[in-house]
């Protein structure tokens, strides 16, 4: 049995999976209105009007969930000068030359960027979504403002989906990662391979 390191507490994991569920639900209900070819997704939510009714509530729940994650993780995601070197070597990482990568802490530069991209897109989604949330808030906003809001809402949604695709792919790509979120632990060799500085921090004095 390899030695395990605790990467996520129970609360972190429940919070993460709550966001993931809301992302899927808000995402599918939103994509239904994104393009005619995806309108069939409204069937999953009980038809067009129900999808329209539910989507904003699902979105707000996702945002609230992310705020929990933000409080838990933002400190670990602050970009530090050392990230610049990792960023320079990102091409090596993508080509499979893992050995060329400098050691990183709990999160590497790309993970941090995913975190901030998700935060930024969720903030835009919330702010713009409220502006055309019928029937509650839309009447308080002029039509010109709502026209900009619907465009920005769609752009932010694409950014969030793109960031999530990268997030999920990285978890599949880097073996041993998924159990960090399903079980809360990673193997020590995973930590050494992928987050050497974090590994050192976790094992110092032990």
């Amino acid at each position, binding site marked *: 049995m390899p*030695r395990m390191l605790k990467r996520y507490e129970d609360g972190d994991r429940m919070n993460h999976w709550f966001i993931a569920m809301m992302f899927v639900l808000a995402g599918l209900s939103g994509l239904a209105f994104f393009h*005619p070819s995806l309108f069939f997704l409204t069937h999953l939510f009980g038809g067009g009007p129900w999808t329209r009714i539910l989507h904003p509530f699902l979105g707000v729940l996702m945002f609230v969930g992310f705020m929990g994650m933000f409080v838990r993780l933002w400190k670990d995601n602050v970009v530090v000068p050392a990230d610049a070197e990792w960023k320079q070597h990102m091409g090596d990482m993508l080509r499979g030359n893992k050995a060329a990568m400098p050691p990183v802490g709990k999160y590497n530069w790309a993970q941090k960027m995913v975190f901030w991209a998700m935060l930024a897109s969720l903030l835009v989604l919330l702010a713009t979504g409220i502006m055309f949330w019928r029937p509650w808030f839309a009447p308080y906003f002029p039509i010109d403002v709502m026209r900009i809001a619907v465009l920005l809402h769609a752009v932010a949604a694409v950014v969030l989906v*793109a960031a999530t*695709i*990268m997030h999920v792919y990285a978890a599949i790509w880097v073996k041993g990662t998924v159990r960090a979120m399903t079980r809360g632990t990673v193997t020590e*060799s995973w930590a050494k391979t992928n987050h050497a500085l974090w590994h050192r921090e976790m094992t110092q004095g032990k």
Partner: protein
Amino acid sequence: MASLQSLDVVARSATTTPTPQVRTAVPQVAKLIDESKCIGCKACQVACMNWNDLRDDVGTNIGVYDNPSDLTPSSWTVMKFFEVEPKQGNLEWLIRKDGCMHCEDPGCLKACPSPGAIVKYANGIVDFISENCIGCGYCVKGCPFDVPRISEKDNKAYKCTLCSDRVGVGLEPACVKTCPTGAIGFGTKEDMVAYGTKRAGELKERGFQNAGLYNPEGVGGTHVMYVLKHADQPQLEDLPANPSISPMVSVWKGIAKPLALAGMIGAVVAGFFHYMKVGPVEEKADEKEGA
């Protein structure tokens, strides 16, 4: 309406394949509102209520003749009264019958995300098919004339149908039939353009140098047109001078979405091939326990 299909739907919201439109020998129609003949009697409002079985709530007087003060889900046409000075010191009382303009290039239809909730018939009428309406309000953002109104009772969008049900069986719209001064005309688009141009010419002879037909190009022309006494200043009567579908809406509903969709699918496909080419990042084999 599934059994009484019209076969003359030339455009349908949120639909990417051709609609049933085999009936091509349908003349384009238009309503022509000649403001110089309008006396503001509101018979058209009453006729609209009557034919469409609409009864708006009794509102409050806002100090002018406008009643109700604006279009509502149950008032599809409203007389609007304007006290204006087109020339300094020359007060004029202009009256405009407000309602859907039935654009040749309808912004509401372009913005609508629900398949078949908004259609345009071969005769040019733009109609809301309310059973397909999901109540999102996108039509409001698409419309350059601020026409659609969404009901608080049923969350469906409503507006003038140009009496598509009457026109479909060869009758003129209810407002046209009732107008006591002949200020509202109805016929083929071609005839109405010709008649409106002639009327504008007559008004010019009578001293309204800037009289003209309001049939704005920016939305491909409209199937409700006005003869305006001051066609150079339509904004005097709350009409946009050069209406067009907002660029925000055209970008949002135009090129951006198919590209974004392709991008999202592309990202997943790229991930798949990256994995197959490069392979996973594996942990280094754990050197002896407790390393």
